[in-house]
């Protein structure tokens, strides 16, 4: 069903499958679910075709997935993602974090693994940083992906004001602690202070 006006081989809204040639790449950009090969735009997902207008008034073809499906590639973390994770293990020079959710993605389907190295805990002064005084196992941290790391885990960083521990439980009382400065948290019940690299609370 050719729509001669826009040169599309498929009517907008009709179902496409991967590999379907949608149109030539001359006037149309490839959006989500499409790719360009040679001189044409092809679909790479199963769904209905959507045409939208991109910024510079060029048309963009994308594929809207069926009900209840997500793009599998949306679950992949990349550099710059802000993530929420839980500290699992502490070593002398790093903290292992289990990444649970990411900012643009929401809760992840599968748990990813990341580490915060000693030099990425905060800006400057790497030698003085003690991992044990920055995190404890069980803390919830807000961090940023800075590198794809090695084969097993991502590299994360908390070296910014708004990154760091956002929730920690006091060792003495078991209550959730309140941050009092960038490097300390206090239990509301026992008033005991513990050292953490805290995230700046949002106003």
């Amino acid at each position, binding site marked *: 069903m050719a729509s001669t006006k826009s040169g599309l081989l498929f009517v907008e809204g009709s179902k496409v*499958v991967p*590999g379907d040639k949608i149109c030539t790449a001359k006037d149309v950009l490839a959006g989500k679910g499409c790719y360009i090969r040679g001189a044409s735009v*092809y679909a790479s997902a199963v769904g209905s075709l959507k045409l939208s207008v991109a910024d510079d008034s060029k048309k963009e073809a994308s594929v809207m997935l069926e009900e209840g499906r997500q793009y599998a590639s949306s679950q*992949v973390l990349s550099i710059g993602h802000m993530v929420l994770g839980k500290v699992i293990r502490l070593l002398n020079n790093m903290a292992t974090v289990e990444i649970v959710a990411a900012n643009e993605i929401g809760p992840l389907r*599968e*748990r990813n693994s990341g580490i915060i190295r000693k030099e990425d805990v905060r800006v400057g002064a790497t030698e003085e940083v003690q991992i044990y005084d920055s995190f404890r196992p069980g803390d919830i941290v807000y961090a940023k992906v800075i590198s*794809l790391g090695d084969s097993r885990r991502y590299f994360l960083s908390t070296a910014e004001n708004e990154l760091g521990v956002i929730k920690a439980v006091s060792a003495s009382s078991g209550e959730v602690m309140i941050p009092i400065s960038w490097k300390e948290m206090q239990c509301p019940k026992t008033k005991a202070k513990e050292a953490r690299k805290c995230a700046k609370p949002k106003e």
Partner: protein
Amino acid sequence: MPAANNTLSNCYIPLLSSGRSSSLKTKTDLDPSNPQSSTTSTCSPVSNTTFHAPLCPSHRPSGSLSSESRTARSIRHLCIDRHFLSNSTGSAIIELGHTKVICNVQGPRPLSSSSSTISSNAASDGSAIATGMLHCQIRFAPNFAINMQRNTMGQATPLDKLLSTTSSSSAGISAQETELSLKLHDALVPSLPMHLFMKNVVDVFVLVLQDDGAILPACLMAASLALADSGVEVYDLVSSFSIAVVSKDNTVWVNDQDENDDDESMNAQGEMEEEEERCGLSKVDDKYHLLADPDANEISRAEGILTIGMMSNWKEVVFWDQTGRLPPMVVSEAVELCKEGCVAMHNFMREALVRR
């Protein structure tokens, strides 16, 4: 086992050709005027799509075929369904005649969580980060395969005989399974944009419920459909087809007589020759029949088998598997036939995805 809301058609060990029940019309006619006698009733109408598949006939051996045998160019009864496993990202089931294959796709998953990928498809640490990975695994369901002997023969027998009886197919991974998994991996990799899931691995698990020939094409198509179904972006659907080359001296499928009796009388030979002349088959087919979509019987009698995997929209062959001894001319002709078959299969796969 996760819940499956689908019913398989025809799950039984097939009887010999003479005893086949009339309700199971697995042949598909090339003659368009013959309305499709469908077994759609055995497939649940809502979620299942049944296809009756004539190939574009370049030759059509007309003439005296017994009612049970198929024409040389016809595909078996094909049933495709998808997204029926509630627990997985994507799933597909393909029934090609009596060959039944289920595929289940998980992922993309982070590399660290699935330990099975560390040993297989070994890549250095550097390259594993830069692109995603694909992990394929084909397994034969232990008690469902049609031909159990074939299954268990491929395994190494342990020195202790007692062990082999209890843990025969369930524990061991036969060489055939490993080989098929590698082939599946090689065939699927070109169709996946690996740069879209870096540091992640896509797991493809295929379970063969019944094996009646054409295992690899069925697995390949099921895997491709399951990948498309799961939301993983793929460049194109991979369709696959296999052709068995049977030498004419060996074929008795034209006759109504018992298929297993190979040394037929000269009558058989004469009939077949007449037939070939009638159909105007090419020179190459002087000595060989090219049978499309062979079943297990035909495969065991074949001189050679050719399996092609193709991405039809890109018009690229991504997989070529050939066994046996075949003269080059026969191979070229078989490849052309395979490609036509792949295009036909692609149409059915596409319909299955769109219709659902």
